[in-house]
């Protein structure tokens, strides 16, 4: 049975193809159109999914959309009616789009599909899942567990903002829901907006800023903004927020509570105040999540936990769940945000329609390392690079790995473009920029000369799975870079009293461990364990780097500049090389050294993309 899942029309459009219950292809539209968080119908992602396995749309048994438009419209109408007349401004902005387009999503989707293939004419083939059903399916069905508690947390779907379900075999039964406007995702987004980052994309920056601050606003948040119950249920005090009725996340009362207006991103500096705000909302988020997981573990007796929804990308909170011990095993969908809804929708429909049993392999999920995107043959890479004027050297596979490891050990930053592109927001060694984590200057160099982004942003380590426990306080797998753990004590470097007293970003520049480029100010690191079975080439590179340097770790950051979608094609990668301070590309079996290229091809595109 061939099922195509679609998420679209809100943010992070994507398509995912599931054949007989196995995810075989998935990609976000932004990677093809080069528009970050592209919300348009995912034409190119659909084309890729079908082309990858040589199917036509008429070969697809069902296309499944990841939410239910009527239910969402119901939520909008009821929210506006409940807040008459204050919601008129928002009502006026939302209604034209809904009455013209979104309410008629079925027709719109069928029209789009008919452009692909006239054979897909039957409206019966088009199905809709609920938003959180899609998230829960994306978290449970690909997981390695036969049974698990499935927790989904995000901004909002139709009505649901938080859901807990019991997954067993090929079934999911919902046991708890929290409804709009009470939303942990929207609470976090409100603070993202307040600190001057973009809602729906800057949340991870708020999380990265948190370790610099002190959580001195926790009591203010808990006593005024959110009422947290013992079991993790929560209610947001709407008199401080504007997202239900207005066009902003927070209102004047919210500003008065903290004593300042929202930070203007292009005008105001990030100050210790903003870091304290970030630390406070992060602490409150962790408290809610931990109360939820503890109470649900107690209630259900489950030992396995699956997570999805945008809040599941909060890897600091995820690390705390793991260390809390309420659950023995934790699996997080790598595309936990709305893009992953496409995959979840397809999987939910597959098990509901086919009724076939679900096969699991202990310790191994069915995401294939999340390498579900496009790939290019070596010959195609060579011809595409030649067409854009690149000067390329080709090597055998092992020689290229040696060359890359040597360059990295010599302090170079290398664009690593190998195999299939990752599905989800993280680069996992398919489309990554790599560097030596032992360098004390690498964090600054990568941030300012290559990524063109704020210097406070930490980088993440990729580490050989076999060696993770020697370097970090982590025993298990973290293949999708969704868990944070601390650098082990013996790898830390003691700071002088003077260094201890440094504050904020100044502290980041102090060498705090043997791997300073990936050690955050609180000694934490967002870890990716690299596994031989899912990414043998990247595993080999790390092994070679370890042989040369004794260090089984590399800095792994997404292959893009600030605000740009991660590169998808060889041309994107070459453009990034020529527009940044990257030293070389290792792409397929090709080596592209920056200093051997025609300088006329260099271009400055650092300001071509908006800040998150």
């Amino acid at each position, binding site marked *: 049975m061939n099922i195509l899942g679609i998420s679209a029309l809100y943010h992070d459009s994507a398509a995912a193809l599931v054949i007989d219950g196995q995810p075989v292809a998935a990609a976000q539209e932004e990677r093809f159109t080069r528009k970050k968080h592209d919300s348009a119908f995912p034409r190119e992602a659909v084309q890729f999914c079908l082309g990858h396995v040589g199917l036509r749309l008429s070969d697809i048994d069902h296309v499944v959309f990841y939410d239910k438009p009527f239910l969402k419209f119901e939520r909008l*109408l009821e929210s506006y009616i409940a807040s008459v007349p204050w919601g008129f401004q928002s009502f006026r902005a939302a209604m034209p789009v809904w009455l013209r387009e979104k309410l008629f999503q079925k027709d719109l989707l069928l029209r789009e599909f008919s452009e692909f293939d006239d054979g897909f004419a039957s409206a019966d083939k088009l199905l809709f899942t609920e938003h959180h059903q899609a998230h829960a399916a994306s978290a449970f069905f690909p997981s390695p567990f036969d049974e698990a508690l499935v927790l989904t947390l995000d901004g909002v779907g139709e009505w649901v903002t938080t859901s807990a379900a019991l997954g067993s075999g090929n079934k999911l039964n919902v046991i708890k829901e929290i409804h709009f406007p009470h939303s942990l995702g929207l609470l976090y987004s409100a603070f993202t907006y307040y600190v001057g980052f973009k809602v729906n994309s800057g949340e991870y920056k708020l999380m990265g800023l948190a370790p610099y601050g002190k959580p001195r606003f926790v009591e203010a948040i808990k006593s005024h903004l959110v009422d947290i119950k013992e079991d993790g249920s929560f209610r947001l005090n709407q008199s401080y927020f504007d997202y239900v009725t207005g066009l902003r996340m927070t209102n004047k009362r919210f500003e008065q509570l903290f004593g300042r207006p929202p930070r203007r991103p292009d005008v105001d500096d990030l100050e210790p105040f903003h870091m304290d705000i970030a630390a406070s909302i992060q602490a409150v988020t962790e408290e809610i999540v931990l109360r939820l997981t503890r109470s649900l573990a107690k209630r259900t007796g489950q030992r396995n936990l699956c997570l999805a929804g945008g809040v599941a990308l909060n890897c600091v909170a995820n690390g705390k769940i793991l260390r809390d011990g309420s659950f023995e095993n934790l699996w997080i969908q790598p595309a936990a945000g709305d893009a992953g809804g496409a995959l979840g929708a397809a999987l939910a429909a597959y098990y509901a329609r086919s009724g076939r049993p679900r096969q699991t392999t202990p310790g191994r999920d069915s995401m294939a390392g999340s390498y579900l995107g496009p790939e290019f043959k070596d010959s195609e890479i060579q011809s595409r690079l030649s067409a854009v004027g690149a000067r390329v050297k080709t090597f055998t596979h092992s020689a290229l790995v040696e060359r890359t490891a040597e360059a990295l050990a010599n302090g170079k930053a290398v664009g690593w473009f190998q195999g299939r592109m990752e599905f989800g927001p993280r680069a996992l060694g398919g489309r990554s920029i790599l560097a030596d984590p032992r360098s004390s200057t690498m964090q600054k160099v990568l941030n300012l000369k290559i990524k063109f982004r704020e210097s406070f942003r930490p980088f993440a380590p990729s580490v050989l799975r076999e060696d993770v426990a020697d370097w970090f306080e982590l025993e298990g797998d973290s293949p999708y870079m969704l868990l944070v753990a601390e650098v082990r004590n013996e790898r830390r470097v003691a700071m002088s009293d003077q260094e201890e007293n440094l504050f904020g970003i100044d502290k980041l520049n102090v060498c705090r461990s043997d791997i300073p480029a990936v050690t955050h100010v609180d000694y934490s690191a967002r870890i990716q364990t690299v596994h031989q079975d899912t990414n043998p080439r990247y595993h080999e590179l790390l092994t070679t780097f370890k042989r040369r340097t004794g260090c089984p770790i590399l800095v792994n950051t997404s292959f893009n500049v600030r605000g740009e979608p991660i590169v998808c094609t060889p041309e994107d990668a070459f453009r990034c090389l020529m527009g940044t301070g990257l030293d070389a590309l290792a792409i397929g079996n090709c080596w592209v050294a920056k200093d051997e290229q025609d300088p006329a091809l260099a271009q400055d595109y650092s300001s071509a993309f908006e800040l998150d």
Partner: protein
Amino acid sequence: MKSFIAELWVYLRARKKYWLIPVLVVLALFGGLVVVTQGSAVAPFIYTLF
């Protein structure tokens, strides 16, 4: 449009949200009016409503 209305009816029944019908009817009328009057001779008609 026929299938859309049929689906809307199925949804209203399943969710027992019959009270939304008048809201939807008003929205449809105004929505239709806005579409019909865009750049047409009927445009002044809408001004008397607001």
